[in-house]
């Protein structure tokens, strides 16, 4: 059974259709990336799942149970994009506040706070006001406040925005630990390389709809970018481009697209040598998520 199932979600704000029949599902322990340009409908979707937006049509189900808007969702954790913390309270006090608001009390609360402080690496700063924390420390605490009540599904809205690579790595390690416990994660991010590296599946949202969904390989297929990109660096500027190649903006680089590396690459190299050029470097790669994303959503600015 899917942990989260969204079917034909529709929501309009005046004349703007924020969600226009969006559907997706998320399995147990899965990390699903939700990508889309600004204004694509990601935030509306996250708010609808969290019960903060009332859908005009469609449904949101958690473990097969349809969720009513405005009702508590104890199985759900929300990690907002802003560091939604009380800056004058300490880490421990923030954790206690959001833990209790999510129904964690007594001894369990103490245990969970102790766990969260260890998990975030903030145990030695637990009694310092949050306003004295670095950006990375706040991000980690922001994450901990959203998962203290051990939700089965966590919504993560840009959890690594504005932090250094070390903190980003640390946050993904924390998310990995959650997944190891069986927690499902829905992640929105604009860091495409992060989504490419971390997410098992990706849903690309645009104009309120899921325009593509699947693994990166599946997305490449759906975007019509199947094949491998070959990039050859040669010893001098190319006057006449050999057959099967395209000219790059760099006059010493040739590019081509192939589907079978084993069979087609030797032929390409032979043609280059026949043209009197010496190959200095060869790079073979699939289409990047960036290329897929732009192919699916276009290059025009949205805001």
């Amino acid at each position, binding site marked *: 059974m899917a942990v989260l199932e969204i079917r034909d979600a529709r929501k309009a704000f005046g004349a703007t259709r924020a969600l226009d029949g969006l559907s997706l599902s998320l399995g147990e322990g899965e990390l699903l990336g939700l990508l889309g340009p600004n204004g694509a409908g990601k935030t509306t979707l996250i708010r609808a799942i969290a*019960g903060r937006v009332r859908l005009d049509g469609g449904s949101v189900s958690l473990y097969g149970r349809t969720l009513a808007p*405005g009702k508590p969702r104890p199985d*759900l954790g*929300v990690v907002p994009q802003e*560091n*939604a*913390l*009380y800056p004058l309270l300490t880490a421990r006090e923030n954790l206690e506040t959001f833990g209790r608001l999510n*129904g964690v009390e007594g001894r369990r609360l103490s245990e969970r706070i102790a766990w969260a402080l260890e998990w975030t690496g903030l145990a030695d700063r637990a009694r310092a006001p949050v306003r004295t924390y670095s950006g990375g420390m706040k991000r980690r605490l922001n994450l901990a406040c959203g998962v203290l009540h051990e939700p089965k599904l966590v919504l993560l809205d840009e959890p690594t925005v504005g932090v250094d690579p070390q903190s980003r790595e640390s946050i993904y390690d924390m998310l990995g630990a959650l997944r190891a416990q069986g927690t499902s994660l829905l992640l929105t991010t604009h860091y495409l390389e992060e989504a490419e590296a971390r997410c098992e599946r990706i849903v690309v949202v645009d104009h309120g709809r899921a325009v593509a969904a699947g693994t990166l390989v599946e997305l490449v297929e759906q975007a019509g970018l199947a094949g491998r990109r070959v990039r050859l660096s040669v010893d001098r500027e190319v006057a006449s481009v050999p057959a099967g190649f395209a000219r790059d903006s760099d006059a010493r680089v040739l590019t081509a697209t192939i589907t079978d590396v084993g069979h087609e690459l030797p032929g390409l190299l032979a043609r280059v040598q026949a043209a009197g050029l010496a190959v200095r470097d060869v790079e073979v790669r699939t289409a990047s998520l960036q290329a897929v994303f732009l192919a699916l959503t276009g290059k025009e600015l949205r805001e």
Partner: protein
Amino acid sequence: MIPLLIRNSWTQLRRDRAAQVLVFIVPIAFFSIFAVIFGGRGNRMNGVSRVAVAVVDESATAKSRALVQALEADSGLRVVTTSPARAGENAPSATLTRASAEDMVKRGDLSVALILPKGIEESLGSFGGHGVKALILDDPSDPVAARLVGGLLQRAALRAASAGGGFMGMAARDPDEMLPLRFEQREVLGQKRETPMVAFYAAGIAVMFIMFSAAGAGGALIDETDAGTLERVLTTGLGMNGLLLAKWLYSASLACLQITVMFVWGMLVFHLPLVEHLPGFVVMTVCTAVAASAFGLVLATLSRTRQQLAGLANLIVLSLNALGGSMFPRFLMSESLQKMSLVGFNAWALDGYIKVFWREASLAALLPQVGALLGFTALFLVVARRLARRWETA
């Protein structure tokens, strides 16, 4: 470069409605409100409105009646000779007695009572004779009224005496004996107070500042919106009702503490009789605090930004306090303005504190003020709850 920056500043002002309101509308609003209160339209001190005075004619002679008529004819006075009929009573109004007139002053119905004792007719127009004196009973919280009545009494006495032909023996008298009618003055309230006006100012300032504090405390909602904690809290099981209740109770407890600190300071430094009036103080403080904190929630839910809240709070709080008597005692305003000021909860709060500390009123006598404050509280909470719907599920 400098003209460019100046032009940019003007352009930004032109596009910022809130800033335009603060720059142009708020000062005009303040000016208008203060002009009405302190200027020619509502201020009793400039003589435009009349001073209410209870007159008891115990002499009931032709001369004393002539004096009462002269007082009634004076444009500066509104003479009351009968006790007002109570609501729901069909009995005709009774002629005032010394005791009922004194009660009216004690209750705060009016600030001055003038007693014309038996034998006063002999003293009228005698210019310093040592006969019976008129008696002015006054509420010292209104220092102007008694002096005004004393002065106008002389004018009326002169008119009444001249009508009766009594202008003899004026030569070679000392100035004190040049009065056409001598009188003595007695304060019927606050005689035991060392600093009788301290209670009034403590209440006035405390009420004004808890209104500012309540607006600030309510503004935490705006801060939480900006910080994202409001959104996060609303995804838990707490809900908007719980959130507003928590903000309201926090703000009310803060207001209680703030008023208490103010009055304790007044007690320690200015000998404010707090301990003797503790029950009344507690009742008024709790009612005032819950009303002020609910009022703060209305301002906060009405505002979109902290800047808007600051502008709104400055405008409304200062206006209500000017009208409600925190800056300028209401009893010095015209009667119409005094009635108008009751649209603000703070005027009821101040009336309550004055009843407790000044008029030695019982707890039962605070019922109108308590009822009004709790009514305002309920109204404010309903309005704040409706306004807070914008933060709820979209």
